[in-house]
C-alpha cells in the first residue's frame, strides 16, 4: 500500500516508458515518413537501417549528413539522471523540463527550418551558408521521439507541483494543447495570414479592410427587395436554427423521458435518422417534395389552381433542411441532461407544494440550462458551418460557408477573400460562445451527488405534454416522408422522367462476384465504401477519446490558461469544413508534417472537426457529477487516470455514446472538408456521391445514400450495444408502473 523507497528503480514507470519510446523513435524506427504503412514492415527490406528513406535518425546523424539531428541524443540521455531521483527532488523536475523543452523545441525548430529544398528561410541560408541536404515529412520515429520529449516536459512540470503534481493531468493537458496547436491553430493561422496577403505576396492591412467592407458581405438590400449580405444571411439563419433545433430537441427529450409514451424506442431511432444522412440528401429530398416540380408543390398548385413557385430555394429550404439535420444533435445533447436532472430535486419541489407545471418551470427547466445553452450553441455553429444544404437549396441566398467555397474553387480564386469571410464567420461563432457563458453565469448545476439518488422523474404536466406530443408528432411524420422519398427514389429508374421501379442503381454500385479466389467487389462504389468505413471506424474512438479527456480537464481540473484552453478546443468547430479543408491542404502539403493525400489527413480532420461535440456532451454530463466522487477515488489510492477510467467514464456512458455515434456518423457523412482532402487512393463515399450528382446520376447517388443510411443504422445499434448502460439504481422501471 505505502509507495515507499524500495521501488526506487521503478519509481517513475511512466517516465521510463516514455524514455524507451523516445529511444526507439530515435535509434530504431525510420525517422521520416515511409511509403507504405509502418506496420507492413516492408521498410525493413528497403535498405534499413542505412538507406536514407528508411533510416532512423541516429543513422542519419551518424554519417555526418544530417548533423542537426545529433543534439537530440543529449536530450534523450539527460533524463536518465532524473530517473533515479525522487519526485520531490527539485533536480528531478528541472532535468525533465530542460531536456523535454529543449528536445521538443529543437525538433520543431529543425522541422520548420529545413524542408524539401534545404533552408526554408532566406535569412538562415545567408547566416549558415547554403545547405546541400534536405528533409521530408516526419515519420514514425520523429513522432515517437517528439511525444517522448513532450511527456518528459509535462512530467517535469508536474514534478514542480503543477496541478497537484498530477502526471496524468499535466500530460493530458500537454497532449491536447500540442495536437490542437498542430492541427487547428497552425493550419488556421497559416490560412488567416493570407487575408493580409496582396497579389504581390506582401502583407498589407488595407487589403484586408477592402475585402472586409464588401457589400456582398454586409449589404442590407433584402429590406428593399434586393439581396442581403452573406454575413447577415448566415447570422439570421443560424439564430433561427439554433432556437428551433433546441426547442424541437427538448420536446423529443421530454417525450422520451417524461411521458408515458409507449413507442419511445421508435421515436429514439427515428430522431437518429437525420443525423446518419449525408446533408445534401435531405436537400435533394426537399427538392423532390417542394421544388418547382416537387410532389407537394404540384399538388398544392393543382388544388388551389395557382402556378407553382420556386419558394423553397433560399432561406425557407435551407432552414427546413438544417432543422431536419441538426435537431437530432440537440436531442442527443438534451436527453443526457434531462435524464441527469436529479429526481430528488423535482421531488423536493413537489413536496414544497409546487404542482407539476411549476416544478417543471422552476426546477427542471433551470437545471437544464447548461444543456439548453449547449444545444443552442451546437445548432448555431452547425448552421453557420453547414455547406451541403445551402449549396443544394440556397439559390440566391448566399451564406458565408458557400461563399468561402466559391472564393476558393470558383473562377475568382481569391484566397484572401476566403480568409476574410472565415474571420467574419469565426467572429459570429465566438460571440455566440461568449453569450452562452454569460447566460449560464456562475450558478452551480450539479445535481448528481455522491449520495445514492433513488427518486423518480415526475411526468410532464398535461398542459405541456400535449403541445410537445403534437410538435414531435408532426416533425416525426415529416421525417418519415423525407425518408420514404429517399428510399423510393433509389428504386426509380429516372426521377420525373421514367418512373419505373428498378434495382439497377444498386447493381451498378454494389455488385460482387463469387470466384475461386473469393469475392470480387465489382461494384463501382465499393472502393469508396470500404475507405469510408475504415476511416470512420478509426476516427470515431479517437474523436470520442480526445473529446472526453478534454471535457474532463475542463470540468475537473484547474490550471492556468484554462479559458484559453477551452477556446482552443472549441475553435475547430467554429470553422467551416471548407476552410479546414483548404487550410489543411496548404499546411500539410509540405514538411515537417506531410500528410496530404494520405488517410491520416482525413482521420485527423475528422477528429478535430468533431471533437467539440464530444467535449460539449462530456462537459454537460460531467458538470452533473459531484466532485467528491473523484476526490474520494483519489484518497482511496486510485490515481487520476484510474479515477477517470473507473468512476467518471462509467457514469458518462450516455455522453460516450453520443460522442462515438456522432463522430462515426459525421465521418461517414461529412462533405465540406472532405472534398478538398480526398485522393485517388483515399476516396470517400460522400465525394463519390457528389461526383455522381454532378453527372446527373441521381439514381445511383440516392441508392448509395440509402445504403450508407442502413449501414450507419447498424453501426449505431452496434455501438449502443457495445457501450451499454450503467445501472445507478434509480427506480425508473418501477416508477412507470406506479404512476
Amino acid at each position: 500500500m505505502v509507495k515507499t523507497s524500495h521501488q526506487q528503480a521503478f519509481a517513475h514507470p511512466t517516465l521510463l516508458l516514455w524514455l524507451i519510446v523516445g529511444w526507439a523513435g530515435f535509434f530504431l524506427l525510420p525517422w521520416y515518413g515511409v511509403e507504405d504503412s509502418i506496420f507492413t514492415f516492408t521498410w525493413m527490406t528497403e535498405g534499413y537501417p542505412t538507406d536514407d528513406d528508411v533510416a532512423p535518425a541516429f543513422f542519419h546523424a551518424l554519417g555526418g549528413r544530417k548533423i542537426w539531428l545529433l543534439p537530440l541524443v543529449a536530450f534523450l540521455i539527460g533524463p536518465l539522471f532524473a530517473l533515479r531521483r525522487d519526485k520531490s527532488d527539485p533536480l528531478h523536475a528541472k532535468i525533465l523540463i530542460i531536456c523535454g523543452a529543449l528536445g521538443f523545441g529543437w525538433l520543431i525548430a529543425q522541422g520548420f527550418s529545413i524542408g524539401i529544398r534545404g533552408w526554408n528561410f532566406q535569412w538562415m541560408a545567408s547566416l549558415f551558408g547554403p545547405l546541400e541536404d534536405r528533409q521530408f515529412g516526419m515519420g514514425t520515429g520523429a513522432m515517437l521521439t517528439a511525444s517522448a520529449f513532450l511527456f518528459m516536459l509535462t512530467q517535469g512540470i508536474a514534478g514542480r507541483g503543477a496541478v497537484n503534481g498530477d502526471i496524468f493531468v499535466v500530460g493530458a493537458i500537454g497532449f491536447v494543447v500540442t495536437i490542437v496547436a498542430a492541427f487547428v491553430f497552425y493550419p488556421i493561422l497559416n490560412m488567416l495570414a493570407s487575408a493580409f496577403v496582396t497579389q504581390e505576396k506582401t502583407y498589407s492591412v488595407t487589403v484586408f479592410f477592402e475585402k472586409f467592407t464588401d457589400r456582398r458581405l454586409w449589404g442590407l438590400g433584402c429590406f428593399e427587395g434586393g439581396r442581403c449580405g452573406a454575413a447577415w444571411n448566415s447570422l439570421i439563419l443560424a439564430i433561427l436554427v439554433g432556437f428551433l433545433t433546441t426547442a424541437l430537441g427538448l420536446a423529443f427529450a421530454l417525450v422520451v423521458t417524461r411521458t408515458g409514451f409507449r413507442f419511445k424506442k421508435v421515436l429514439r431511432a427515428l430522431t437518429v435518422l437525420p443525423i446518419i444522412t449525408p446533408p445534401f440528401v435531405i436537400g435533394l429530398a426537399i427538392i423532390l417534395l417542394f421544388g418547382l416540380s416537387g410532389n407537394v408543390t404540384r399538388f398544392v398548385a393543382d388544388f388551389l389552381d395557382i402556378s407553382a413557385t420556386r419558394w423553397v430555394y433560399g432561406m425557407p429550404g435551407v432552414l427546413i433542411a438544417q432543422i431536419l439535420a441538426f435537431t437530432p444533435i440537440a436531442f442527443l445533447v438534451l436527453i443526457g441532461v434531462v435524464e441527469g436532472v436529479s429526481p430528488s430535486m423535482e421531488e423536493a419541489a413537489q413536496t414544497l407544494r409546487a404542482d407539476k407545471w411549476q416544478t417543471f418551470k422552476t426546477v427542471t427547466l433551470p437545471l437544464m440550462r447548461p444543456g439548453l445553452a449547449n444545444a443552442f450553441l451546437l445548432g448555431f455553429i452547425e448552421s453557420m458551418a453547414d455547406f451541403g444544404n445551402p449549396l443544394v437549396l440556397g439559390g440566391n441566398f448566399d451564406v458565408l460557408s458557400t461563399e468561402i467555397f466559391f472564393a476558393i474553387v470558383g473562377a475568382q480564386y481569391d484566397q484572401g477573400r476566403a480568409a476574410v469571410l472565415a474571420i467574419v464567420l469565426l467572429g459570429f461563432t465566438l460571440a455566440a460562445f461568449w453569450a452562452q457563458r454569460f447566460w449560464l453565469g456562475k450558478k452551480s448545476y450539479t445535481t448528481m451527488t455522491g449520495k445514492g439518488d433513488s427518486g423518480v422523474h415526475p411526468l410532464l404536466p398535461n398542459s405541456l405534454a400535449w403541445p410537445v406530443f403534437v410538435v414531435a408528432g408532426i416533425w416525426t411524420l415529416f421525417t418519415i416522408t423525407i425518408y420514404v422519398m429517399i428510399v423510393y427514389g433509389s428504386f426509380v429508374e429516372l426521377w420525373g422522367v421514367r418512373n419505373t421501379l428498378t434495382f439497377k442503381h444498386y447493381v451498378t454500385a454494389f455488385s460482387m462476384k463469387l470466384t475461386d479466389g473469393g469475392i470480387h467487389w465489382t461494384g463501382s462504389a465499393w472502393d469508396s465504401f470500404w475507405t469510408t468505413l475504415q476511416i470512420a471506424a478509426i476516427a470515431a474512438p479517437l474523436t470520442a477519446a480526445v473529446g472526453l479527456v478534454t471535457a474532463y480537464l475542463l470540468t475537473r481540473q484547474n490550471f492556468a490558461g484554462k479559458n484559453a484552453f477551452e477556446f482552443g478546443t472549441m475553435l475547430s468547430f467554429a470553422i467551416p469544413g471548407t476552410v479546414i479543408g483548404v487550410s489543411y491542404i496548404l499546411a500539410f502539403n509540405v514538411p515537417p508534417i506531410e500528410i496530404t493525400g494520405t488517410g491520416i489527413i482525413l482521420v485527423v480532420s475528422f477528429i478535430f472537426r468533431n471533437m467539440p461535440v464530444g467535449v460539449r456532451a462530456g462537459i454537460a454530463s460531467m458538470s452533473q457529477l459531484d466532485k467528491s466522487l473523484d476526490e474520494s477515488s483519489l484518497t482511496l489510492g486510485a490515481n487520476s487516470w484510474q479515477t477517470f477510467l473507473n468512476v467518471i467514464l462509467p457514469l458518462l456512458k450516455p455522453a460516450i455514446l453520443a460522442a462515438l455515434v456522432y463522430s462515426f456518423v459525421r465521418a461517414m457523412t461529412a462533405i465540406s472538408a472532405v472534398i478538398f482532402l480526398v485522393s485517388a487512393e483515399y476516396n470517400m463515399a460522400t465525394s463519390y456521391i457528389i461526383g455522381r450528382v454532378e453527372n446527373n446520376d441521381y439514381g445511383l447517388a440516392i441508392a448509395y445514400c440509402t445504403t450508407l443510411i442502413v449501414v450507419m443504422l447498424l453501426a449505431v445499434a452496434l455501438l449502443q450495444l457495445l457501450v451499454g448502460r450503467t445501472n445507478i439504481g434509480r427506480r425508473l422501471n418501477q416508477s412507470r408502473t406506479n404512476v
Partner: protein
Amino acid sequence: MLEPNSKAASVTFDGVTKLYGSAATGVRAVDNVSLNIEAGTLVTLLGPSGCGKTTTLRMIAGLEMPTDGIVRIGDQNVTKLPATDRDVSMVFQSYALFPHMSVLENVSYGLKFSGFNKSETAQRARAGLELVGLANYDTRLPSELSGGQQQRVAVARALVLEPQVLLFDEPLSNLDAKLRRQVREEIREIQQKLGLTVVYVTHDQEEALAVSDRIIVMNNAVIAQDGTPRDLFEAPANRFVADFIGEANILDCEISAAGEGMATVKLGGYQLDLPRRDNPDGKSLLGVRPNRIIIGKAGASNSLQGRILRSTYVGSHLELTISTDLGDLFATSDDVDAPYAPGNEVSVTFAESGPVLLNS
C-alpha cells in the same frame, strides 16, 4: 475482522498557509497554522463554517496543496505529494459512494489499487462490511441503502485500506440525531479498537466533545485553541472558544496582582482569586459556565446581588436567567425543587474551579 492498525501515523503542519487567488486580493483560507496530531488519536477540527477546518483536512488528504509551509505524515514530508500517493483515506460529507458500483465494489475500490490480489481484496472488503454491520448488503447499489447505511459503507470503504490517517469531513451532518449519536459512538469504538489516527471535521461542538481525544478549534483561518475536550470546556483560552464551545457567561472584570501566577478578580462587589493565565493587570474578561454558578440567599457577603428574571424547568435541571449589575447571567441548577420564581432576590457566587480568565 480487521487487525489493530500498526501503520497509524502522526500528522504535522509546520507554518502551513493556503491562499486562494493572488497574494494581494486572495482569500487566506488557512493562515500560518502549525499543529501536531499524534498517532493513534482522534483529533477534531472544530469551528464555524468558513474557518478553514475543511481546507486543513483537504490539505492532509492531498486534495489541496499548501501555498506555504510543510505537511508531514509520520516522518515523511508529503507537502507536494498528491492524494493518490498519500496513505490517507477520507469519508466525505456526501459519502461520495460510486453510484454505479455495488456496495462490495465500492468497498473493494481502494484495495484494487493497493496491490491486493482478488481473493484478498474480497476478503478484506467483506471484513470491512462486517465491521460496520453490513455484511449482507454487498450486492446492493448505494441508492438502495438508507442514509445511515450509505454512511457506513463510506466508512468501511475508507477503513479497509488501513490508512496511516483516516479523515472524516462532517460525516454525520446528513443523519438524524439518534443515528448521529449511534454512528459517532461506532466511529469512536472502531478508532480505539484499531488504534487509528483519525482527523475529524465538524461544526457541531457536542459531537466534537464526545468523540475526540483532542480538539483543535479554528477561527478565521487560525487555531483558536488546541486541547482536550475538558481543557476547552473548562479552560477556554479566549472569548471565542468560551462562546463557541458550550454556553458561557462572559463578564467584564478588573484584575490585580495576588501571589505567584494568581490574580484577584473584582466583579463589582464580588472578589475572587484565580489563576492569572498571562492576563495583565487592569480590565479583563471572565468566563463562567452556567452550571458553575451557585445561587444563594440574597444579601450574602462577597457575592453578586441579582434578581431571577426567568426560571424554566427542563426535567433534569432548572434553567435560570438572573439579572445582576454586570448584566444578565445564564445559570443552571440541579436543585429542581428549589422555589425560584421570577422576581426573587438572590445572591450569586461562582464554584471554585468554575470561572476562568479569558484572553480577549
